[in-house]
C-alpha cells in the first residue's frame, strides 16, 4: 500500500528554485533512504511533506498522504497530522530537547496535545514508549532532565517523542550524524526494530551512503534539487545508472594514492611521554576542595617523520584534549611533549614562540576557522609570526602564493575575503595556513568530517600528496573510521583517556585485539555491494 505519494513537486524560496519535479512514493512498512550532498534539497523535501516550510516558499505539485491531499488541509488539520500521523527526528540531539523540562514531560506532552488523554494516562504511555526505545525505568525515570543524558540517549528520547503516538510515517533527518560510530549503530538498530514492530514507514535522510546501504529498502539519490536516481536499494546499488550515483559511491569508498612510508626509527617528529591532563570540576560548595577530572591518562606515543597516525575513539574519550595538549593550547598536568627531539612543553611550561612553527593545526569547522575580517593573504601568513627570522613583504607574498597554489587554489585568491569561498575551498585554505611555515607535524582535528563525500575525497587526496611531497607527518583525529583507515599508517585507539590499542592501521582494522576496538570496528556501516546482494537474497 502506498502511504505517501509525492508527485511533480516543484518548490522555490523567494523565487529561487530549490526543488525540481520531485516524484516518489513511500510504501507502508518500508524504509526509504534519501541521499545527497548538502544543498541537494533533502531536508526541504521532508519539510514540504510536513508543510513546515520557511516564509516566502511557493510550491506546486501534489503531496498525498494516506489518501489525503496535503494541499487541501487547513493549518489546524495539518497540526493534527504532524506528530500524530507523521513525525520527525532531527540531527542535533543536544538542542532538540527542551533543557528545562523532564524527559517524561516532553514525551507525554505531545501525547496529551494530540489525544486529550489525562496526565496519568499520558505518563503511562510515555513510560511504555521510553521502555521501547531501550531506556528502562530503573535508570531513566520520567523525572530525569535531558542535560545528564548522553547524545545517544537524547536521540532515543527524541525517537520516543516521535513514535509515542504510533505515527504511520517517521522522517529522520540525519539522525546519527552527530553521534559516534558505536552509538550510531545502536540507534540505527533501534530504528530498524521499530519499523518492523509498528509497520512504520521511515524516510531516512542522510549524506552517508553506507548508512543507506545498510538500512534502506528503497533509495532516492538527490542532486541540486532533482532526483537523479531512484529504485529499490538492490537495483540502485548494483546498477548505478546515473554517473552521479557512481561518483558518490566511489567518493565514499575513496582511498587516496599514497606511498607506503619508509619510516626511519630514529627520526622522531613527535614524542608524547606519559602525558596527563586534568579539568577542574565545578565546586560543590564555596569552600569544598577543588576536584579534578582527568581527561587524558598517562598517554605515550611517537610519530616518525612522514608518518600518518590516526587517533580514534568515541566522543568524550579525550582525543581533542590530547590534541590540544600536544599543541600546548592546554597545559600538561604531567609528562612531556617533545617535537623534533626538543622539549616543546612539559608540566606547567609552554614552548618558545619560535618552536611553534613546527606544529600546525587544521580544524573541523571550515566556517569558524577564519577571522571573517581579514583577507586570505593575511590569514594564511599568520603562522609566520612564530618564525624567528624577519621576512619582508615580498617574501611573505611569495610564500602565500606558493601555499595557495600547492593546495590547488589560485595565487590571486589572497586578495579575497573568506566568505567568498565554499566549505571545501576554506578547508584548503586552512591547510595552506598550516603548510606555510613548513611544519613537521600537522594535527588534523576532524578535518574532513564537515565536508561532503566528493569534496572529502579531494581533500584526502590533497593531504596524501602534500604528505609525500613535504615529508609531513599527520596526527589524524577522527570519529570516522573509514577515513582513518584510508589515510593513516598507524592507528591509536583511545577510550576514557587511555590508549587501549595501537598498531599498523591494516592490522588493527582486520584483527582488533581490545574489546573496545572490536566494538568500534563492528559498528562501522559498510558500503559493500556483495553484502547488499546477500541482503536481497534473504528478504
Amino acid at each position: 500500500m502506498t502511504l505517501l505519494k509525492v508527485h511533480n513537486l516543484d518548490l522555490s524560496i523567494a523565487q529561487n528554485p530549490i526543488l525540481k519535479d520531485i516524484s516518489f512514493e513511500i510504501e507502508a512498512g518500508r524504509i526509504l533512504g534519501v541521499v545527497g550532498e548538502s544543498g541537494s534539497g533533502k531536508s526541504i523535501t521532508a519539510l514540504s511533506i510536513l508543510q513546515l516550510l520557511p516564509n516566502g516558499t511557493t510550491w506546486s505539485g501534489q503531496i498525498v498522504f494516506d489518501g489525503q491531499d496535503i494541499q487541501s488541509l487547513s493549518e489546524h488539520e495539518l497540526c493534527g497530522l504532524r506528530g500524530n500521523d507523521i513525525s520527525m527526528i532531527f540531527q542535533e540531539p543536544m538542542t532538540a530537547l527542551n533543557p528545562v523540562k523532564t524527559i517524561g514531560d516532553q514525551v507525554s506532552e505531545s501525547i496529551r496535545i494530540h489525544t486529550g488523554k489525562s496526565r496519568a494516562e499520558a505518563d503511562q504511555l510515555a513510560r511504555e514508549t521510553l521502555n521501547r526505545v531501550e531506556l528502562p525505568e530503573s535508570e531513566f525515570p520520567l523525572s530525569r532532565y535531558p542535560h545528564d543524558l548522553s547524545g545517544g540517549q537524547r536521540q532515543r528520547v527524541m525517537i520516543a517523542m516521535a513514535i509515542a503516538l504510533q505515527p504511520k510515517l517517521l522522517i529522520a533527518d540525519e539522525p546519527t550524524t552527530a553521534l559516534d560510530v558505536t552509538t550510531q549503530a545502536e540507534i540505527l538498530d533501534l530504528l530498524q526494530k521499530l519499523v518492523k514492530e509498528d509497520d512504520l514507514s521511515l524516510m531516512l535522510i542522510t549524506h552517508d551512503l553506507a548508512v543507506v546501504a545498510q538500512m534502506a529498502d528503497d533509495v532516492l539519490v538527490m542532486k541540486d534539487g532533482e532526483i537523479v536516481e531512484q529504485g529499490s536499494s538492490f537495483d540502485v546499488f548494483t546498477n548505478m545508472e546515473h554517473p552521479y550515483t557512481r561518483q558518490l559511491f566511489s567518493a565514499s569508498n575513496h582511498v587516496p594514492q599514497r606511498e607506503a612510508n619508509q619510516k626511519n626509527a630514529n627520526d622522531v617528529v613527535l614524542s608524547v611521554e606519559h602525558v596527563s591532563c586534568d579539568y577542574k570540576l565545578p565546586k560543590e560548595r564555596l569552600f569544598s576542595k577543588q576536584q579534578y577530572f582527568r581527561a587524558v591518562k598517562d598517554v605515550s606515543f611517537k610519530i616518525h617523520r612522514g608518518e600518518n597516525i590516526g587517533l580514534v575513539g568515541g566522543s568524550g574519550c579525550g582525543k581533542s584534549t590530547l590534541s590540544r595538549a600536544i599543541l600546548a593550547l592546554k597545559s600538561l598536568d604531567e609528562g612531556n611533549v617533545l617535537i623534533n627531539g626538543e622539549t616543546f612543553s612539559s608540566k606547567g611550561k609552554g614552548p618558545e614562540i619560535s618552536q611553534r612553527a613546527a606544529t600546525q593545526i587544521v580544524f573541523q569547522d571550515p566556517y569558524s576557522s577564519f577571522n571573517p575580517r581579514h583577507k586570505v593573504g593575511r590569514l594564511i601568513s599568520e603562522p609566520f609570526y612564530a618564525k624567528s627570522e624577519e621576512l619582508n613583504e615580498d617574501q611573505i607574498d611569495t610564500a602565500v602564493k606558493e601555499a595557495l597554489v600547492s593546495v590547488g587554489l589560485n595565487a590571486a585568491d589572497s586578495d579575497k575575503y573568506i566568505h567568498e569561498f565554499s566549505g571545501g575551498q576554506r578547508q584548503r585554505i586552512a591547510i595552506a595556513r598550516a603548510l606555510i611555515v613548513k611544519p613537521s607535524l600537522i594535527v588534523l582535528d576532524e578535518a574532513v568530517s564537515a565536508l561532503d563525500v566528493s569534496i572529502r575525497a579531494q581533500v584526502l587526496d590533497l593531504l596524501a600528496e602534500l604528505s609525500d611531497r613535504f615529508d609531513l607527518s599527520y596526527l589524524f583525529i577522527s570519529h570516522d573510521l573509514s577515513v582513518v583507515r584510508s589515510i593513516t599508517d598507524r592507528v591509536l585507539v583511545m577510550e576514557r583517556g587511555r590508549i587501549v590499542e595501537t598498531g599498523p592501521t591494516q592490522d588493527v582494522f582486520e584483527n582488533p585485539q581490545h574489546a573496545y576496538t572490536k566494538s568500534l570496528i563492528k559498528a562501522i556501516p559498510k558500503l559493500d555491494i556483495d553484502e547488499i546482494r546477500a541482503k536481497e537474497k534473504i528478504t
Partner: protein
Amino acid sequence: MSEQTVSQPSTMKLVLRSNGFIIGAFLTAIFVLAALISFIWTPYDAAQISIVNKLKTPSMAHWLGTDHFGRDMLSMIMVGARVSMAVAFVAVGVGIFVGVPLGLYAASKRGGLIDEIIMRGNDLIFAFPSLLLAIMITAVFGPGAVNAIIAIGIFNIPVFARLSRGAALSLWQREYILAAQVCGKSKARISFEHILPNIANLLIVQGTIQFSLGILAEAGLAYVGLGAQPPLPSWGRMLNDAQTLISIAPHLALVPGLTIVLTVLGLNLMGDGLRDLLDPKLRRVKS
C-alpha cells in the same frame, strides 16, 4: 559543496530603507551642526544680559525667545549643545578606552583571579549611584564640566567592560583564535588583532546609546548644579532656571526640555538603526 550566494542589497540601499536610522541621524546631525556652528556664530552672545528683552516669547528677533535675564535662548541652546556633546563624547571615550581593554583582558584570563577582580570591581561601580559619586567628586574638586566628564566617564567603564568581555568570551571559543594561539601569538595580541575588530559593531552601537545617556546624565548633573558653571550655558541648568517661572514663561522649560528629548531620541534611533544595519543576521531577515 556549492555555496549559495545570498544576494545582499548594498549598504546605501539598506540605509535608505531604515526609517529609524534616517530620522535618528537627521536629528543628531541638527544638534551636532548647532554645536559646531556655535563656535563661529551665534545669533547673540549667549552670556549677554539684556533686562529690557527679558522673558520674550519666540519672535523673528529671538527665534526661541529670551530668558529672565533677556539672554537669547537659541544662542544658549547652541552653546549648551557644545557643552553637552563634549561632556558626553569625552565620557564615552573614557568608557571605551578604559572599559574595552579591561573587558578584553578579563576575557583572556577567563575564570582567573584577575578576571574576578576586574569584573567584581565593575559590579561595585555599577552598584554605586552615579549621582552620589558626582556629588562626591564635586565636593572634593568643586563643580565644573571636567568633573562631570569624570563622573559620567567612570560610569561608562563597566558598561563597556562587561559588553566587550561577554562578546570576547564567545569569540575565544572560535577556532581561528586557537589557530592564532598555535602560531604563538600572545593573548593581548590576539585580543587586539582578532577579537577587537569582531566586536567593533557592538561597541559602535553601544557607544551611540551611551552617548545619549551621557547627554542625559550631563543634563541631570547640571540641573542639580554640578555640571558646567555659569556663565557657560547648559541645558540642564536652563531647565532648572525655568522651574520657578514655568507658569509665566513655559517656553523657558519647553525649549531645553524638548532639545534634550529630541537629542536623546535621535541618538537612540540612530543606535538601533546602526545595530540593524551592522548585524548581518537582522539584515537578512529585514530584506
